[in-house]
């Protein structure tokens, strides 16, 4: 707290222990606690508590009906040693996240950068074009029509007509095509919040810096990007990374909608699907909590990694 308020209360901080000081501050700011209370209460109930509860339940054999027994690490052992489908899911999730996360991140950044110097009206239109698929609900189902298994699907119709294939391909029921197609659809819907944040970040950079850069010998736009633009928007890069990581690991709804559940030969089965399978269909809550915890740890870990990478930008 500022010294001014402290003087007003006529008690100096050095007269008190740290706890007494904190207590005093807490009493003085009662209204602040009142203001955060409703939000924090709901937030704790539906965001923090579920995560903590998952960790606890993952050490039990809870199934929603019987009293749970503590089984310690059994769920995790089973997950990694006894569950082949989990290993497929883990592999798919990693492939998925490793492609969709970075590509969608770079695509957002690139498009935001490309349109930065357009006139505001054109920029608004282009922003809408790129952002629309991510907010339009079920619109990704159109990919099911484009790649439908019969000859009324656009892809099949043209490939047959042009003589490239002789028989229609059942795109979303063929283990060879399911994964690449889902990645394409995921990328199509992935220019979301991070994209908008990048646009705003680029707009917020002081134009004088570019002029100063030109005087200092910046010769092309790549140098400008690396030495001026990116370092200036590091906070947005960080925020965008969190959003991209969360959504690329949590991706699953689109796969279920397009390929059914489970997808053919588990070709596009991700950890999210495995989690839903055990959590809301087989009611093995303990086991599914272990899956959730693994996914959670992976998300936090990759986030820490990406943070390190971004801190190197511009140096």
């Amino acid at each position: 707290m500022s010294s001014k308020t402290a003087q007003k209360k006529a008690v100096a901080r050095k007269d008190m222990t740290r706890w007494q000081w904190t207590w005093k501050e807490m009493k003085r700011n009662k209204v602040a606690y009142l203001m955060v209370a409703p939000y924090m209460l709901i937030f704790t109930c539906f965001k923090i508590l579920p995560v903590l509860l998952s960790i606890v339940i993952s050490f039990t054999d809870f199934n929603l009906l019987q009293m749970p027994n503590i089984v310690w690490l059994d769920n995790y052992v089973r997950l990694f040693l006894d569950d082949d489908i989990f290993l497929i899911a883990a592999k798919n999730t990693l492939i998925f996240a490793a492609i969709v996360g970075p590509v969608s991140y770079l695509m957002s950044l690139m498009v935001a950068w490309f349109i930065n110097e357009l006139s505001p009206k054109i920029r608004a239109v282009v922003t809408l074009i790129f952002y629309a698929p991510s907010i339009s609900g079920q619109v990704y189902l159109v990919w099911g029509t484009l790649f439908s298994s019969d000859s009324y699907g656009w892809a099949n119709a043209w490939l047959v007509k042009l003589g490239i294939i002789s028989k229609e391909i059942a795109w979303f029921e063929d283990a060879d095509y399911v994964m690449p197609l889902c990645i394409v659809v995921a990328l199509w819907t992935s220019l979301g919040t991070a994209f908008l944040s990048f646009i705003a970040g680029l707009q917020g950079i002081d134009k004088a810096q570019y002029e100063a850069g030109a005087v200092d010998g910046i010769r092309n736009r790549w140098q400008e990007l690396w030495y001026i633009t990116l370092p200036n928007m590091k906070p947005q890069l960080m925020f965008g990374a969190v959003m991209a990581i969360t959504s690329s690991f949590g991706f699953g709804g689109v796969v279920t909608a397009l390929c059914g559940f489970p997808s053919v030969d588990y070709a596009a089965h991700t950890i999210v699907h495995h989690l839903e399978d055990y959590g809301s269909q087989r009611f093995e809550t303990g086991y599914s909590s272990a899956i959730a915890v693994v996914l959670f740890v992976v998300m936090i870990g990759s986030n820490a990694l990406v943070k390190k990478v971004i801190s190197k930008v511009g140096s």
Partner: protein
Amino acid sequence: MAKLRTRKHKVVLARSRGGDAGITVMLVIMGAFMVLPMYYVIIQSLKPLDELWMFPPRFYVSNPSFKNFKDLFTLMSGNLVPFSRYIFNTVFTSVAGTFGNLFFSSLAAYAMAKIKFPGGKGMFRLVRTSLMFHETVTAICCFILMSAFQMIDTYWAIIVPAWATSLGLYLMKQFMQTGITDAVLESARLDGASELKTFWIIAMPMVKPAWLTLIIYSFQDLWNKGASIYIHSEQLKSLNYAIQQITAGGIKRAGASAAATVVMMLVPILVFVISQSNIIETMGSSGMKD
């Protein structure tokens, strides 16, 4: 020192024609990838039956008709639950969830951004970390907690969790931090205004772009909610769920399901078009420091 191009004594930024052309080409290619599927849904929804079953499918429509949209209404009236009920469910949960979120999140965001109190920073850090808690990770334990609160199969199961979104508080707090100058608040406090009054009369009008953004994010999220594991009763299910049922009717309903998709996507797109500049302004402060 590098060669410096100047025009009328003004520094010209380093731009090559080749670079401009390359960027334009890339933008057009990526733009086509984004826009063509969207365009295709709209075209499909306007195609009469004979054009829907044309081989190969066309990317344009010769005799546009609104028959698919009319069919959508006939299909919907055949449901067990009147279709207006699904519309009411989605509109009601979207509106109630959004306004609660706006109120609780900005109240908390203001305290975290503008009042220094023990624990405030820690709470915000927790919210920031929770941006990583994906819905699917928390869903099962949320279900258990909601059963304990007896919220399963009621509107509350959708509405109450929407009142405290991580992204909503995060964006609001970041915007308030830079968007409201402390001097204004200080003078209001000196005039004897209570903290709550300062929040409501002084701070809130200054962060309009942020609340618009919060409203839109929250609304889109709730509007696009499909089948939920928290809701069993047919009469409480969402519009999106009902529309999915129509789409699931198979290829005979290709036209109607395209029409349904168009109807569902129009609302969030329109909302975004109206509020785009405000959202971008809010995003300006979305960055994560440290």
